[in-house]
C-alpha cells in the first residue's frame, strides 16, 4: 500500500553471540516454573501440549488397532468407549485449543507488537498452572478407569447412566476453561494496550488479528461451557433435574449449551492456525499478503458467525425444522470467511517467488486439507445430506481434516518457521521435508477412507463393524501408523536440533516482522534492545533488499 521505502534500521548488538538471552537467563527449575517471561511460558506450554498430544495419540493408536478387525477383539466395547472419549477430551481440550495460542501466541504476540511482555505476566503464568491442574484431573481420571461418554458429554447418558468418572473430568475441563479465558483476556488487552509506537491496527501482522479474534471467542464462549459443565456435574451429584428428562429437565438444552461453546471452539482451534499461515505464506512467496483487510475482517466474521451456527450439530436432535433450516443457511455463510482466506493465500502465492522450505510445505498441506475439511463441513451443513451421514465416519473424517489437516499442519508450519527464533537453532531441513511427506501421506491414508466409510454408513463410536468395511479400515489403520511415525520423527529431530542444530542467526528466512528484524535469536528476556518504532505495513517484502545475506547485513557493533 504505502509506496515510500523505509530503511529498516539494522539492529546494533555488540557481541551478539555472548549476549544473554531468555534461555540463558537462568537454569534452575525455579527460574522456569516461576517465570513471568512470556517466552518461557510458551516453552512450558510447548512441553505440556506435546505431552498431551502423544497421550491422545496413544489412545488413537489403540483405537485404530482395535478397528483392524470387524469384531471387537482387542478391547471390550465398554473400553473402546473409554478410548475414544479420552482421545477426544485430551486432543480437543488439552492439545488443539491451547496449542497455537499457548505456544506460538505466547511466544510471538509481544514480539510481533514490539512489547516487552504480555499485559499481565503473572496472570499468564497462572493460566498455565490452571491448565496443568485441569490436565491433572483428566490424567487422574485416565488412570482411575476413564470416562465413556464421548467428548461431548451428552445428557442424560453422562448424568444418569454412565458409571465412569464423569465428575472429575468435567471438573478438570471446568478448570481448564479458565486457563483459556484468562489467556484470551490477557492477549486481548495486550493487543489493545501494548503495541509499539506506530503499530496501528492495519499494520499488525495478521497473526495478531487471528489471536485477537480467537481471544474474543475464548472470552465469550468458554464461560458458557464452564457453567454448562457445572450444571451437568451438579446434576450428576445432586440430581437437580436440569438436564434429566426423568426429573422434568431437558437433555437437548445441554446440547444447545454445549454446542453454543463447542462450535465457536472449532474456530478457537483453527483461527490461530490461519494466523500462522499468513506469516509463512508471505515469507516463502516473498510477497505482501493479498487482501490484508479482507483477511483481517474475515476474522471478525468468524467471531460473529461462529456463535450463530451451533444448531448444525443438532440437525437430527429434535430441533424444529425451521431452526435446522436457519442454522443450515448460517453455516453456509460462515464458509465465506474461510473461503476469503484460502483464496487470498492462493492469490498471495500467485507470481510470488516461492521456495519450498518445510514450513511452506506445511502451508501447502494446510491449503489442500483444510479445503477438503471445510467443504465437507458445507456438505454436512446441508440438511438432507447430514441426515444421511450424521454420526458416521463421514463426520469423523470432516473434523479430522480441519483439525489435523488444518490446525496441526498450521501448528507444524509455525513450529518449524519460528523454531530458529525460539531456540536459535536450525532443524535439519531434508529430514524435516521427509517427515512432512510422511505426515501428509499418512494423514490422507488414515482419514480419506473414513469419508467413504461414513458415506457407506459405518457409524462412529463402535468397536465392531460389518465385514464389508474391513478393507477401508485396514487402510485407515495403516495410514495411522505412517502418521504416527511422522510425528515421532518430528519430535526426534526437533530435540536433536536443540543440541546439534546449526546456529540459526537472527533472521534465517529473511522474513519481515519485528520478531525477525529487530531482535536476536533467541531474543533477550525483555525482547528488544530498544523499543521498535513501526512505520510501514507488514509483509513489506517488496521493499527489502534480500539479495545480500541478511544475517551478515545486521552488523555487529556500530
Amino acid at each position, binding site marked *: 500500500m504505502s509506496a515510500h521505502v523505509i530503511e529498516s534500521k539494522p539492529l546494533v548488538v555488540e557481541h551478539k553471540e555472548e549476549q544473554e538471552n531468555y534461555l540463558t537467563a537462568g537454569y534452575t527449575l525455579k527460574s522456569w516454573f516461576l517465570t513471568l517471561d512470556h517466552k518461557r511460558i510458551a516453552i512450558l506450554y510447548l512441553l505440556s501440549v506435546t505431552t498431551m498430544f502423544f497421550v491422545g495419540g496413544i489412545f488413537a493408536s489403540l483405537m485404530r488397532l482395535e478397528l483392524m478387525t470387524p469384531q471387537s477383539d482387542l478391547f471390550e466395547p465398554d473400553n473402546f468407549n473409554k478410548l475414544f472419549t479420552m482421545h477426544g477430551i485430551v486432543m480437543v481440550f488439552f492439545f488443539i485449543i491451547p496449542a497455537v495460542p499457548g505456544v506460538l501466541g505466547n511466544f510471538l504476540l509481544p514480539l510481533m507488537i514490539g512489547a516487552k511482555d504480555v499485559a499481565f505476566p503473572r496472570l499468564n503464568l497462572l493460566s498455565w498452572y490452571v491448565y496443568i491442574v485441569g490436565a491433572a484431573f483428566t490424567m487422574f481420571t485416565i488412570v482411575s478407569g476413564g470416562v465413556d461418554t464421548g467428548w461431548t458429554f451428552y445428557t442424560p447418558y453422562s448424568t444418569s447412566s454412565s458409571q465412569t468418572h464423569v465428575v472429575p473430568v468435567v471438573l478438570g475441563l471446568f478448570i481448564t476453561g479458565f486457563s483459556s479465558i484468562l489467556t484470551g483476556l490477557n492477549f486481548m488487552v495486550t493487543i489493545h494496550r*501494548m503495541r509499539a509506537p506506530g503499530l496501528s491496527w492495519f499494520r499488525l501482522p495478521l497473526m495478531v488479528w487471528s489471536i485477537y479474534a480467537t481471544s474474543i471467542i475464548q472470552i465469550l464462549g468458554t464461560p458458557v461451557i464452564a457453567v454448562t459443565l457445572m450444571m451437568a456435574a*451438579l446434576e450428576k451429584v445432586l440430581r437437580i433435574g436440569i438436564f434429566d428428562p426423568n426429573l422434568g429437565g431437558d437433555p437437548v438444552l445441554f446440547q444447545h449449551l454445549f454446542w453454543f461453546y463447542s462450535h465457536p471452539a472449532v474456530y478457537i482451534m483453527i483461527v490461530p492456525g490461519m494466523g500462522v499461515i499468513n506469516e509463512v505464506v508471505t515469507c516463502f512467496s516473498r510477497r505482501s499478503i493479498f487482501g490484508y483487510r479482507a483477511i483481517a475482517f474475515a476474522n471478525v466474521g468468524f467471531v460473529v458467525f461462529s456463535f450463530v451456527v451451533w444448531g448444525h450439530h443438532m440437525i437430527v436432535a429434535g430441533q424444529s425444522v425451521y431452526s435446522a433450516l436457519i442454522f443450515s443457511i448460517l453455516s453456509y455463510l460462515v464458509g465465506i470467511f474461510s473461503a476469503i482466506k484460502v483464496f487470498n493465500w492462493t492469490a498471495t502465492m500467485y507470481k510470488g517467488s516461492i521456495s519450498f522450505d518445510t514450513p511452506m510445505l506445511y502451508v501447502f498441506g494446510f491449503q489442500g486439507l483444510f479445503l477438503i475439511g471445510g467443504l465437507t463441513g458445507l456438505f454436512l451443513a446441508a440438511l438432507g445430506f447430514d441426515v444421511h451421514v450424521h454420526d458416521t465416519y463421514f463426520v469423523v473424517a470432516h473434523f479430522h481434516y480441519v483439525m489435523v489437516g488444518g490446525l496441526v499442519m498450521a501448528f507444524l508450519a509455525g513450529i518449524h518457521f519460528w523454531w530458529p527464533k525460539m531456540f536459535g537453532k536450525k532443524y535439519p531441513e531434508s529430514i524435516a521435508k521427509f517427515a512432512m511427506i510422511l505426515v501428509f501421506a499418512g494423514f490422507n491414508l488414515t482419514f480419506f477412507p473414513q469419508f467413504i466409510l461414513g458415506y457407506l454408513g459405518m457409524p462412529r463410536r463402535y468397536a465392531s463393524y460389518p465385514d464389508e468395511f474391513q478393507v477401508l479400515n485396514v487402510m485407515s489403520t495403516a495410514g495411522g501408523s505412517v502418521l504416527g511415525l511422522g510425528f515421532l520423527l518430528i519430535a526426534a529431530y526437533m530435540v536433536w536440533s536443540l543440541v546439534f542444530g546449526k546456529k540459526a542467526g537472527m533472521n534465517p528466512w529473511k522474513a519481515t516482522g519485528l520478531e525477525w528484524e529487530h531482535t536476536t535469536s533467541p531474543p533477550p528476556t525483555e525482547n528488544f534492545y530498544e523499543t521498535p518504532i513501526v512505520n510501514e505495513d507488514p509483509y513489506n517484502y517488496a521493499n527489502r533488499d534480500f539479495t545480500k545475506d541478511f544475517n551478515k547485513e545486521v552488523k555487529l557493533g556500530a
Partner: protein
Amino acid sequence: MHSSEHSAHHPALAHHFQDLDQQKDATWLAMWVFLGTEIMFFGGLFLAYVIYRSSYPDAFAIASNALNVNMGLGNTFVLIISSFTMAMSVYSAQMAQTGRLVVFLILTLVLGCTFLSVKYFEYKDKFDSHLVPGRHFDFAHHHDPKTGAILEGAHGGSANTESTSHEAGHSEKARREIQIFFSLYFAMTGLHAFHMIIGAGLLIWLIVSSMKGRFSKEYNSPVELVGLYWHFVDIVWIFLFPLLYLIGRHHHG
C-alpha cells in the same frame, strides 16, 4: 523512547509498562473484558431459567411464592446501599482522602457481609423445609394455603423412585417442576453469593492496602477496579431478585 519521567519510577509500575497511564488503561480494559466473561457465565444459567420458566410457568409461580420476599427485598436494599458506599470509596480514593476511603471500604464490607448473613438464614430455612433439590426435596412440607391444592399429595418419595400411588403422576410432575425452580434458585443465588465472597476478600485486601497508604491521586486503580466488580455483582442481584422472588406475586396479593 522511554517513559515519561513523572510516573516512570512509581513503585506500583510494572516493568513492562511504559508508564502508569498505560498500566491503568490495560487493567481497566481487562476488568471490563472480565465482566463480559462473567455475563456469559451467568448467561448460561439465565438461559436455563428462561427456558424452564416458559415451560413450567405455574410451578415457577408457586415455587417463587415459597421464597422469603422480605429477606430478598431487604438484601436488595443492602446491596444498593453498598454500591453507594463503594462509589464513595472510589471517589475518596481519587481524592486521596485515605481516612474516608478506609471508612467507606469497611462500610461496604459490612454491608456485603450483612447480605451474606441474610442469605445464610434464607438457605438454612430452605434446607429445614426440604426445599433443597435432591433426594430429600419435598415441597408438601411447605404448605401455602392459597396454592396447596395444586400440590395435594406432592410429598414423599425420593427423586429416583417412581411413585405408583394414585394421583402420583400429576403431583410427581409438579414436584419435579418445582424442584427445577429451586435448582436454578440455588445455582444462581449460590454463584452470586460466591461472587460476593470473592468481593469481600477483595475489600479486605483494599482495606489493608489503603491503611498502608498504597493509594494516591495518581495510583488508585485497584479501588476503581474492585468498585466495577462490586457494582457488577450488585447488578446481577438486581436481575435475580425479581426473576426469582417476584414471579406470580400479583396473583396472590
